[in-house]
């Protein structure tokens, strides 16, 4: 029996490490291919083109009074010809709406909404600016219904072919829309239904008038650890899934969608806290079930900078929600899992997410419990234990440093002298300083999912990004 348990743990560990290696290798090839393809692309031609497709940016806002004016200004100054910005004030209790009205000369307008997705009703109504400089801006004030509900309201209101769903506190780089629309427009044989780009952490970066001026590494270990974690996930993971057409998630911070398909599947699910993953899985299911050729695209450009939690309480709350979101989505779409009918999603992505994302924290905790049991019974093979712990640790460090190298070779954004050394130090320390909290949050997430069904979103306290 003990041998069988040992064998299963070994099998699991080597499978997960093997999958990381394979995904890492595929990511590298995909990133190189992308860089070659896009080295000389002249985005300016599309930027100024009136025949470029129209995009709506939908940004739900709940009690974002602190930064809302600056965030909206940043969204209004993106480089793209045909776009509008729909701010959905989701029943905020603060003075977000009043601030917006004052700053952007908004007046209430008569607006006909095609209610293709059911949402909470409007509260005060829909506002547009009297100032032609802000003609792209639409502000919707509605009753509170959560992020997914606010995004659905935006989908109903948008008159454009594509919708970019973003977190209002995110900072988009100026040509983010241009870069993200490209996969939709260049695809010939497959319909691109959604696309995402790399999300970077803006803590300690200097931002002025909605523009990123200086990129810095934050001081706190938790923030630095998250930077490394994001680099690993985005540069060594998602690029590979994009290549395999197996992406199951486009970050809720910034993603571009084909509106017709997003509405066709019923919009965002308001009953999950993982709405960003859930809608992608549902859109993919729709395409697979209707035997339509499609692709979920992903590009390695850092398009969006976001504020990451800077304290353990918020961090754990965020990761708890991510865990619950993953469980909810995988459970809701369990029909897809290990089902050849759903092609790469059924036989690759779903099993991977189930085994190595959803089950990983549980297996890890079971491993720790079993380890405790062995110690208690004095049955520990210390030579095995020490060897495997060191091996796992070194592999994590190696993988993290490879992610840093990948960043250096592609976008080289952390240019300052001494940053390289700090990043290496993070790679060595992160398994002790950040990972245990991720594990704890994941276990809490599992507990909350099964025993505290009422729990929804945790509160994320915004401090605002650093101003110059």
């Amino acid at each position, binding site marked *: 029996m003990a041998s069988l348990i040992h064998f299963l743990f070994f099998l699991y560990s080597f499978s997960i490490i093997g999958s990381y290696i394979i995904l890492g290798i595929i990511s590298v090839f995909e990133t190189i291919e992308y860089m070659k393809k896009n080295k000389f692309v002249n985005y300016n031609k599309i930027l100024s083109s009136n025949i470029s497709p129209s995009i709506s940016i939908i940004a739900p806002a709940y009690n974002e009074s602190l930064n809302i004016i600056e965030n909206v200004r940043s969204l209004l100054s993106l480089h793209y010809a045909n776009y509008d910005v729909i701010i959905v004030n989701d029943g905020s209790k603060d003075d977000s709406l009043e601030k917006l009205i004052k700053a952007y000369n908004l007046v209430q307008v008569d607006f006909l909404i095609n209610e293709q997705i059911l949402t909470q009703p409007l509260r005060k109504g829909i506002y547009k600016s009297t100032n032609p400089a802000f003609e792209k801006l639409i502000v919707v004030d509605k009753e509170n219904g959560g992020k997914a509900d606010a995004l659905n309201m935006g989908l109903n209101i948008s008159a454009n072919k594509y919708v970019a769903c973003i977190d209002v506190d995110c900072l988009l780089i100026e040509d983010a829309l241009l870069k993200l629309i490209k996969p939709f427009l260049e695809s*010939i044989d497959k319909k691109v239904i959604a696309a995402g780009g790399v999300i970077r952490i803006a803590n300690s970066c200097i931002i002025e008038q909605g523009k990123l001026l200086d990129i810095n590494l934050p001081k706190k270990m938790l923030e630095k650890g998250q930077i490394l974690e994001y680099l690993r996930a985005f540069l060594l993971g998602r690029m590979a899934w994009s290549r395999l057409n197996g992406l199951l998630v486009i970050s809720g911070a910034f993603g571009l969608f084909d509106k017709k398909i997003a509405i066709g599947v019923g919009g965002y699910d308001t009953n999950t806290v993982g709405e960003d993953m859930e809608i992608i899985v549902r859109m993919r299911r729709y395409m697979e079930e209707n035997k339509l050729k499609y692709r979920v695209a992903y590009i390695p450009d850092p398009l969006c900078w976001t504020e990451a939690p800077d304290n353990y309480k918020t961090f754990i709350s965020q990761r708890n929600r991510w865990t619950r979101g993953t469980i909810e989505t995988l459970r809701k779409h369990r029909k897809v899992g290990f089902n050849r009918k759903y092609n790469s999603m059924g036989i690759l992505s779903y099993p991977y997410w189930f085994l190595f994302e959803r089950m990983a924290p549980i297996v890890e905790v079971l491993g720790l419990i079993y380890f405790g049991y062995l110690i208690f019974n004095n049955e520990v093979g210390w*030579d*095995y234990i020490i060897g495997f712990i060191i*091996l796992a640790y070194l*592999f994590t460090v190696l993988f993290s440093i490879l992610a840093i190298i990948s960043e*250096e070779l592609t976008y080289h954004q952390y240019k300052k002298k001494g940053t390289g050394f700090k990043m290496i130090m993070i790679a060595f320390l992160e398994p002790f300083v950040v990972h245990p909290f991720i594990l704890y949050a994941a276990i809490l997430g599992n507990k909350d999912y099964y025993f505290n069904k009422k729990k929804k979103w945790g509160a994320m306290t915004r401090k605002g990004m650093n101003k110059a």
Partner: protein
Amino acid sequence: MVENNYFVKSFEESSLVIQLVWICIIVLVFSIIFIIIYLKYLRSLLRKNDLLKIKIEKEYEASVINYLYAGNEAEEISAEQQAIIDELKSNISETFKRDILISTLLKLSYEISGEMAESIHKLYIKTGLIDYSLSKLRNKKWNIIANGIRELTLFHVKEVQDQVKIHINHPKTEVRSAMQLYLVNLFHFEGLAFLNDITTPISEWDQIQLLEVLQLHKNQKVADIKSWLKSTNESVVLFALKLAKIYNQYGVKDELMALLNHKNIKIRVDVIPLLSHLSIIEAKIILKNNFKELSLEEQIAFFEMMENVYEKTDKPFIMEHILNPNFEIKFFALKILKNLNIDEFNCFKDLTSEPEFVRIVKYIESN
């Protein structure tokens, strides 16, 4: 020594699995040390290259500006200019420096115009950079071919079009795209002749780029697009539709009408607003008579068209659709009805208490 012996002995006495694990650990430790050294080297190199690039760019910029002002009317190339050419030539064997020179030349050519810009294009040829670009066309790697074509485009080298055109149906989209942009940038509407021969699809991205290049050109006299509207390559037809709209091609009415029966739904849907834009009223009658056979997308496009071309005789048809289950069609039908006859609109506005209908009526009444 004793300690070392202990470790060696322990290793030899341990099981195969443990031995394997320790071998992996040693490999990983050395790998980590190696990649840390590499990372350090890489960061230093990138920083050094950034600084070097700025320095060389400044030097090249100064040389090129000197070259531009060193000419005299007596000679095609003055002695001073020849010296600058020779100096630049001696540097371009290194890819790093060559790329900087190309980007410097391009940067300066964007900032100036007329004879000066022409001189920069000549400098590109005289320094031998053109030979490097041409050699790229013969390379096996697609990204190098695309880069070569791009350089020839940016320096307006028209004479090599035959060498560029051979890539018309290259398996890589990026090469085809570079080839198309070369032709359109340098030969404008005449360059579009490649549409007669292309068998591979032109992506929406490439179509937009081509149209934007065409619009920059002074001569806006479009080539004959009839044959492209009949092309078996559907992307060529879609591109021709865009050309027809931008350049108001009234002369292709028959070809456009024929496209209403095209097998590709996107073409059928795209041609409807174009017919409306060109005020080709005959299309309305055909579409109205076949309305039930149209797809929903075509039906919506047709109602958008109707908004601009409705007549009193259309009232019975419009009345049939004021309760259409589709939101857009219902909206257009009610709006047209109000414009046709407000009294009748008022009569029918209470036809049903269906919330969607009521909202549309309210909106139309107040706008």
